[in-house]
């Protein structure tokens, strides 16, 4: 198992290198001048602009710039933002925890609610619960996250005034009052993303359990007199969850896409919000780094899913 983990981690490194190359190539080959915003000031004379270009190394061919960027990144140097003139790594450090918190909690919500819903739906197939559950799941992944967000804002933020609908990023948690305030302002973003996760997971779990329920081993388990609870939880659910892990892993880019949108709707200062704002201001170093961070996150979650898969399925022995 240990060797498998190491091997699997080593495999993801070349993937990340290729992805970083793709990102850099897109940025470098784009017909847009990285200095267009930075050096837009008409007071900067052309010679000075040329000097800035040379100082930034922009006179070199892009594959060389890529290698330099890549090697600098390994030492934790992600460059400097054109806009705030602070190191990109500082911006990421400020914002990444917010994104991970929202995505992580939403994922937990999805697992905690989605699995039971899918399970009961499958066991009591065609019952009222199943119909309501499946309809809900269908709606959950047909509705765009930004629309759910806006609806929640209209309903709970404006009409009922239960929750604040603009995320206060300056909030410091130092006592119980500020903690509840933080929880209150996190509820809506997490709900939006959580609903999407619940819907997807419930649907997958239901479909997989329905595949497994009529199989012979389930009949055997029942036949030897096991309690129904035991049959469902120990035999059917366990086996059904294995493919669910893969399906959930494949959906991870969609979850991060949802996070970008959610952060935008509620003004949560995460890296998705940073990306959209940096694109708006043409802050190329930040854009490149954030897209790369998203790639790292996707690859990392895929890795976790693969490891979980190996833990869940004893038949899989990677040699």
């Amino acid at each position, binding site marked *: 198992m240990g060797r498998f983990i190491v091997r699997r981690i080593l495999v993801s490194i070349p993937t990340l290198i290729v992805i970083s190359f793709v990102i850099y190539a897109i940025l470098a080959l784009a017909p847009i001048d990285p200095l267009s915003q930075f050096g837009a000031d008409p007071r900067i004379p052309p010679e000075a602009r040329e000097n800035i270009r040379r100082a930034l190394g922009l006179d070199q061919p892009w594959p060389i710039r890529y290698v330099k960027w890549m090697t600098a990144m390994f030492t934790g140097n992600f460059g400097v933002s054109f806009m705030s003139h602070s190191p990109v790594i500082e911006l990421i450090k400020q914002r990444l925890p917010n994104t991970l918190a929202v995505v992580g909690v939403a994922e937990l919500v999805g697992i905690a609610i989605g699995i039971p819903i899918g399970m009961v739906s499958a066991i009591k197939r065609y019952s009222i619960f199943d119909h309501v559950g499946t309809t809900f799941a269908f709606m959950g992944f047909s509705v*765009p996250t930004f629309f759910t967000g806006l609806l929640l804002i209209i309903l709970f933020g404006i009409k009922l005034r239960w929750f604040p609908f603009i995320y206060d990023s300056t909030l410091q948690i130092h006592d119980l009052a500020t903690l509840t305030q933080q929880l209150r302002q996190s509820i809506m973003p997490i709900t939006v993303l959580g609903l999407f996760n619940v819907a997807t997971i419930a649907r997958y779990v239901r479909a997989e359990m329905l595949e497994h329920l009529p199989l012979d081993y389930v009949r055997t388990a029942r036949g030897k007199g096991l309690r129904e609870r035991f049959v469902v939880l120990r035999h059917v659910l366990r086996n059904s969850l294995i493919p669910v892990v893969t399906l959930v892993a494949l959906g991870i880019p969609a979850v991060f896409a949802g996070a970008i949108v959610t952060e935008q709707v509620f003004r949560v200062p995460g890296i998705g919000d940073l990306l959209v704002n940096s*694109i708006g201001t043409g802050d190329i170093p930040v854009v490149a780094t954030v897209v790369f961070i998203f790639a790292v996150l996707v690859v990392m979650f895929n890795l976790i899913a693969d490891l979980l898969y190996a833990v869940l399925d004893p038949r899989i022995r990677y040699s």
Partner: protein
Amino acid sequence: MATTTNVRVGTLPVANALRPPRSLWGDAWYQFRRHRLAMAGLVVLLLLVVGTLAGPFIYRTPINVIDFKIAIEGPSPDHPFGTDDLGRDLLARALWGGRVSIAVGLTAVLIAITLGTTIGSLAGYFNKLDNPLMRFTDLFLSLPILPLLLVIIYLFRDTLRAAFGPEVGIFIMIVTVIGVLQWMPVARLVRAQFLSLKQKEFVEAARAVGAPDRRIIFRHILPNVLSPVLVAATIGVGGAILTESTLSFLGLGFPPDVPTWGRLLYDAQNYIDVAPHWAIFPGMLIFLTVLSINYMGDGLRDALDPRKSA
């Protein structure tokens, strides 16, 4: 799939003798009609498509007449969906936006399906290509799709706008990037089908009589892959519409004067406290379209699945 029909002929000779002969698609349609929600989806989707295509001819209010006297008004007989901050009619804009959204969805999926089927067939049929092509697919699957879409659109928007004009340029770009970043599931699906089908006797028979690879792929295997691809395509249209509206919602879709559904929501979000109708109508339209497409996909899957038609 054809085998299902044969089984039925074998078991129910009398019933079949009385009925007209049934084809695969006739069978599928028969099954599909019994899926009530899929039929509802089909009806709603047809209404939406016909509405967005014919609507502007019947509902003749222009989409871009500015009138500040009626700015930000709720639904009224004159303006069934209300008006925006410039007093433009939102029903007219939503109808126009629907054309764009649905066109983007269909075209993007066409690109994704073409790419996915090509790569999947090659990987599944030719053993030598399998590993490199699937590595390539895995790589694309671990790309952060939405961030990349945003970056690509930001970087190439002006060039394409200059080359093809603001609307056509952005349309080409959005459709291409969505298609190019969504072919992977189709490729995996097609490859898996190819891997199992190429072992089957009918392929062996075709090869034995000397059919070239091209003919085996196009005449013998691909038609059998058609139904799962069709299901994936249906659901893909919904996904592409969602992606386009997300891009527009983040301000990186079509230019402001092209009112796609996502764009309407993007403009609406700053007025959400005074004009919730502005966001609710286009949002409901996206939701309804995608929901009915997904139900149709579900019904199609059931209808084309030979295991369930018995």
